[in-house]
């Protein structure tokens, strides 16, 4: 009985990393220069899944896209530019699958959670070390996609934009934090080329309906036809490549996919 009235003393676990027993299962390898040579272990990088994207203020984006030093991310990028963008890339599963499938494209993942972003960064570093001349076309950076996309990308720069298993933000008061909203879609349309594709996937029906409704309602996007869907090689990856998707499959959840094409503005001035 006494335990019932005892105050809860532990700090809220939401912000602290789940510390697992570290004895015995430590297989992180460092070479003599202190560089991690083995793949990073996810357990050291776990961070609470939910952030308030409107309150994150400690990010300093480039003033404009032209000052961005992409060669720090892609050693061989030269005059090329990033064409695929995974918003909220999580642990980076999609990036790694896309890297070999589209070896001639530069692919960027963005993630707001610092530890998760650092995990992807260490993962790419490790993959580059163990596979010579591979995985040079993928990178990750930490930024707030809701605020700073135009600071990184020019108009019509991207051809593919991915939103896979976004934070559902169930509460009505948190709907403004959702990554798909009418005002944000205007920015996604701005950075996407005409004919560029916006992919969404989620395991929450309500979020799927929300995304489908808002993107369909937006004048610059149209749903992809079934022929276009079946010929798109990215579609199978949406439900298989990411860690979130694997978790959903493991737990017997449903995958909902919706894909849209960026079209010309149908508005005609009278």
């Amino acid at each position, binding site marked *: 009985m006494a335990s019932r009235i005892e105050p809860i003393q532990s700090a809220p676990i939401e*912000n*602290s*990393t789940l*510390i697992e027993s*570290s*004895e015995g299962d430590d297989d*992180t390898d*460092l070479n003599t220069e*202190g560089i*991690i040579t083995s793949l990073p272990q996810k*357990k*050291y*990088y776990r961070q609470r899944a939910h952030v308030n*994207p*409107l309150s994150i*203020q*400690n990010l*300093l984006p480039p*003033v*404009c*896209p032209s000052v961005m030093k992409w060669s720090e991310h892609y050693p061989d990028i030269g005059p090329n530019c990033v064409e695929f963008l995974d918003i909220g890339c999580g642990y980076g599963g999609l990036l790694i699958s896309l890297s070999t499938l589209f070896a001639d494209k530069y692919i960027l993942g963005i993630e707001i959670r*610092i*530890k998760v972003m*650092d995990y992807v960064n260490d993962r790419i570093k490790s993959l580059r070390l163990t596979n010579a001349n591979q995985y040079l076309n993928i990178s990750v950076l*930490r930024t*707030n996609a*809701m*605020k*700073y996309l*135009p*600071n990184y990308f020019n*108009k019509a720069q991207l051809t593919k934009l991915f939103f896979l298993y976004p934070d559902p933000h169930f509460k009505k008061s948190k709907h*403004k934090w959702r990554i798909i*909203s*009418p*005002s*944000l*879609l*205007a*920015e996604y*349309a*701005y950075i996407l080329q005409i004919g560029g594709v916006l992919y969404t996937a989620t395991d929450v029906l309500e979020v799927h309906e929300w995304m489908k409704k808002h993107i369909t309602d*937006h*004048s*610059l996007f149209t749903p992809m036809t079934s022929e276009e869907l079946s010929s798109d090689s990215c579609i199978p990856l949406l439900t298989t490549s990411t860690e979130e998707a694997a978790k959903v499959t493991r737990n017997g959840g449903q995958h909902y996919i919706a894909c849209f094409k960026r079209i010309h*503005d149908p*508005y005609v001035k009278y």
Partner: protein
Amino acid sequence: MATLLYRSITGIPALVVIPDKSHSLYVIYNIPIQLQTISTSDVTHIVCGCISPTGRILAFVTQGKRLDVYKFEEDNGWIMSYSKLIPFKSSIQSICITNSENDLLLADKSGCVCSFQIKDSGEEICNFSSLLGHCSMLTCVKTSVNDKYIITADSEGKLRVSNYPNAYNIHSFLLSHTEFVTHISFLPDYPNRILSGAGDGTIKLWDFENSLLLSTLTISNTPVYLLDVSSQGIIVVAVEGKNMLYFLTIQENTIMLLHTIELQAQPYSGCFGLNNICWISTYESFHAFTITTEPKFNELSVSDNPCLLYLSKHTDWCQIKKSEESKYSILKKRTFTHENKYYEHKQEWIEAKKRKIQSSHTPEPERPYNM
């Protein structure tokens, strides 16, 4: 601390004064000298107001989100058209009437811009349509001369040029300011250009049609407090913390400093009126300057101008009702160093790990690195 608004009401020299935290605004006509007081029926004070480009419509919003719209009639002055509540959650930051005078645009703190039809629909709560959104606080909204574009400025230093009325189609972003943008001003001789003033103390000249930054002039390292352009293309600027007025001009795509005038107190707001008179309100009093073509700048004395004489009796309009450290203090960027902390912690762990590999006697370091 009074906001000065307008230069002419349908060709009649007049000045609109909105004192800080006031329930009334004052329209002062020059010839003959006349005052019209317009009060809101709301219990809260006026936050912002604007006059349509032709000077026929006056609109203002209170903190309690009551929108009052007045129309000008030659014989009777300003007559209230309607007064309505607007269904906004966040406070209104900027208000603008399109050049066609059909729509009223409101920009709020949460980053939304909504448009209302100015024509009275007869309902108590007006219908509005959401035009566009930023994920940062908006500071200013304007439409271009031909109503082809709507330009919005936010607290992240972004200027967004969207098509109008199809504002979901973004024309471009004008990015160069490192702090919040405080002012957008159009230039009478160049319909495709704007001037912007910001918290980084710079004035920038843009060709927004082609998304080009043409010129930058750094005035100070403190926020720009006022920015207005006369019909002759003379620009007046003031910045926080300096009792100076800067007069600028544009020559061959470059912003040039023409003249500076030192005042007794910090200028707060200002505008150009008819006959090239520049009206300024400071934290203490009102001033007026005439600009002749040479260009020459002369301060008017109260005996020269009946309007200024009138204003000199109402210096209480300049008073600050609430002590504020700065007009834009809430917008200043704050920096945190969470990120550095994380990487420092990680580096420590890697170092410890290295030592451990070199001599297996070192104790297991504490990890993982908590933020």
